[in-house]
């Protein structure tokens, strides 16, 4: 791995350990940069890939996720001061979705926190932030290192994902509960036989699914064995576009779409707090001090000025970047849509939107100003929209343990 990091200037985008496999399967040559890597946006069509997430099994390369290893005597104290949840409650081999804030209580990032052993943790997040982590470590006996390049990561998501993993030789994977992790050794005498990997029952699709963490050297053979094992269960490699549809249906936030990290914003008033983002359930005010606690207490007392909500928009045209109004006439602006999509599964026109008080209450009616290009002739449409509960799609199978045999 040192080789790739020392010669990165010759190669603007790094290739993940799955890159050769992705290249072979790519039909439209649609690659996009992600955190310094080149990754697939679309293999065939986003719709086809999306339906595999909801009806079969999918492989998604998430190696570019930034991964930090946290160890040391004060690891729990450090993490508890960093994130808003109570890390002391996180048991070994469990994962927690977390957010962390700056002093003003504004979101720096979200991510998953893995407790890998008694005193080893891993933070997985979309954006690099070693400077913030190191500053947060002042006064704590803790070592933090980035291990992004030392781990290949693959999401296996979809209703048949558990069956695929079992067929691939991960014996007992069906016993894994949501947000649980476990180590596996692959059965069999094939190329992947004896390979070790860690599986967590986590994902970004809101469906039944797992994430696999492995040595980069094992990446290709594990990809191959999964593809083979999943052939009869409709397995398919997917890109970021299909995943984005699924994550909006699941109501998950995407950095730089639904919020911008408070470490990156330069304009006043564009930072967002977890309370505004509808993540108040992640904030534990009773666990002791954490960065941003005092500011968030003040905010809670004042009541949030705005809130991220789910929207159900009339019609079938996604309200991409639409401004929201109180009235049909469009006089009083009260928010904007940050993510929008036609949900193929729900058959609803859905979106995530930041809406000002008091219009963010469930059941409120707002008007979305949608621009449509009809063969380059633009139309403006005011669509009626209702504030609704998130997630839009939450099938029982995502939690069932053991999952049904699809």
């Amino acid at each position, binding site marked *: 791995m040192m080789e790739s990091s020392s010669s990165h200037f010759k190669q603007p985008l790094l290739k993940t350990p799955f890159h050769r496999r992705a290249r072979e399967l790519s039909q439209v040559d649609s690659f996009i940069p992600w955190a310094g890597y080149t990754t697939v946006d679309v293999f065939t069509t986003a719709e086809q890939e999306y339906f595999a997430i909801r009806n079969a099994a999918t492989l998604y390369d998430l190696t570019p996720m930034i991964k930090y290893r946290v160890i040391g005597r004060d690891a729990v104290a450090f993490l508890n001061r960093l994130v808003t949840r109570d890390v002391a409650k996180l048991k070994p081999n469990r994962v927690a979705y977390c957010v962390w804030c700056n002093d003003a209580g504004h979101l720096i990032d979200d991510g998953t926190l893995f407790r890998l052993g008694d005193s080893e943790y891993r933070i997985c997040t979309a954006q690099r932030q070693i400077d913030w982590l190191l*500053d947060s470590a002042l006064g704590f006996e803790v070592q933090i290192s980035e291990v992004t390049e030392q781990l290949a990561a693959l999401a296996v998501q979809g209703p048949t994902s558990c069956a695929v993993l079992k067929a691939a030789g991960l014996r007992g994977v069906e016993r894994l509960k949501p947000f649980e992790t476990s180590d596996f050794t692959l059965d069999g005498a094939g190329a992947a036989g004896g390979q070790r990997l860690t599986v967590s029952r986590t994902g970004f699709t809101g469906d039944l699914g797992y994430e696999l963490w492995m040595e980069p050297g094992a990446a290709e053979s594990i990809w191959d064995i999964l593809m083979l094992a999943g052939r009869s269960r409709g397995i398919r490699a997917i890109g970021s576009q299909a995943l984005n549809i699924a994550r909006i249906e699941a109501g998950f936030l995407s950095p730089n779409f639904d919020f911008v990290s408070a470490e990156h914003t330069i304009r006043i008033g564009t930072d967002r707090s977890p309370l505004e983002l509808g993540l108040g359930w992640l904030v534990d005010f009773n666990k002791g001090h954490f960065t941003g606690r005092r500011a968030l207490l003040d905010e809670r007392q004042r009541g949030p000025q705005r809130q991220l909500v789910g929207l159900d928009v009339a019609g079938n045209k996604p309200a991409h970047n639409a401004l929201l109004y109180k009235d049909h006439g469009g006089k009083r602006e009260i928010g904007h849509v940050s993510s929008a999509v036609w949900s193929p599964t729900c058959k609803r026109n859905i979106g995530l939107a930041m809406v000002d008080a008091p219009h963010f209450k469930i059941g409120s009616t707002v008007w979305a100003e949608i621009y449509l290009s009809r063969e380059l002739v633009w139309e403006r449409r005011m669509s009626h929209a209702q504030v609704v509960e998130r997630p839009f799609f939450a099938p029982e199978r995502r939690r069932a343990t053991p999952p049904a045999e699809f």
Partner: protein
Amino acid sequence: MQGPSPAPSRYDCVVIGAGHNGLVCAATLARGGRSVLLLEAAAQVGGAALTREFVPGFRVSAGAHLLHLMPAELIRDLKLENHGLEWAAQRMTTTALLGDSAPLALSPGAADHPGLSAADAAAYAAYTARMRRFAAALAPIFSKVPPRLGSTAWSDRMALLRMGWQIRKLGRRDMRELLRIGGMNVYDLLEENFESAALKGALGFDAVLGANFGPRSPGTVLTLLYRLAAESSAGASGLSQPKRGMGALCDALAKAAVAAGAVIRTQAPVANILVEADRACGVALESGERILAENVISSADPKTTFLKLLGTAHLDAGFVRRVDHIRSRGLAAKLHIALNRAPPFRAVSEAALRGRLLLAPSLQYIEHAYNHAKYGEFSASPVMEITVPSVNDPTLAPPGQHVLSAIVQYVPYALKEGWESARPRFLDAALDALERVAPGLRGCIVGIEVSTPVDLQREFRISGGHWHHGDLAFDQILMVRPVPGAAQYRSPVEGLFLCGAGCHPGGGVMGVAGRNAAQQVLKGGWFS
């Protein structure tokens, strides 16, 4: 610890550190009717404002040796003169030592030197008058609590307006001049005004005394104005020398505090500040004893207070980052020499010996001295502020013998080669520099003591050994001193206050931080 610990005692206020600011704070709080416990790690009060014996029979102020920034009304309010404060000298003169030629004498109105041109003499009068006007305009800012940045509260806005008005009130010409020079370096300013290298050196010295700057460093006019404004705010007594040294001032402060009802405990080092439900609720001593209090007020420097005594777990990460980044490495050492006779300064009159002597013969000389410090070395030819306190106060030395006290710059805290091996050579360099203006001085030495910033850190528990608990520079003064979020003597943790030199308006035996902090505690709510 063994056995059950005794029931913890309880006070309204616990003040950490009995330096002058801690003492002023404790006295003010006690006078405000609060029950106050003042805790000091050392065996006596005073902190770095201390008089101690350094050679048998010879006593000296261990830190600052001149008092000129403590407001007259503070001395009056606390009745320090009734509590034993006496003056060995007031309105002391300044004399610049110039090696071979006769020294240059400076008084507020006139500069006196045989080589001085008529133009320089006239320029000096105009320059000092103008700087005095600027200082007077800025002075009110010094005594007040600085406003909060970004606050929309009426009182904060008013305070900012008042600052602006003070400057506007100077009139168009002076205001423009103040704004023009405010960001300059003192080297350029003095070059504009004067011809004489000696005069420029002497006037430039005060801009860099105790600072991490050479005369050509940006912002040195501001540091000079800052000193002048603090002096102007203090009142008219000028440079003064308390009888029996600076420790006597703190003894008087301690008596005032005790008279007002404060309890002082020495040899009681604080291990950490106790926090419960996000509120400071007392302190734990190194002995294990716990003392509960409604408010904890720390005169320790901000890094010691926040990073060591409180602990970063109680603070936001961004705040900790700001505290960690405070520039607080000292560059000033203290040199104490016991002499068997009066120091043989060349051509220095007995009257001049009663005043302050500067070894800073030109701006070049100061800049060269600073160059070394930039690269982690001590100055080959250091600059000095020298006093011979025993001339004004014979109690400090045996009859006929004398004490020389000098602030020596530049002496980096983080010396590249380490202080262990460098100390004797540094002492040699300092004595060589003295010998050039006082031939034969070496022959009169009875004993010597040097305190480098590392020694100051160890002896007085100041992180970085910085006299001001942090550089006084544009980004570390007023509402950003020590850092935003703690610039009004309050900390992010309810019930924990700062009262030391790390706060506005800084160090230099002023006592203003101690008084302002106490007033904030007495007020309770924000600016209420």
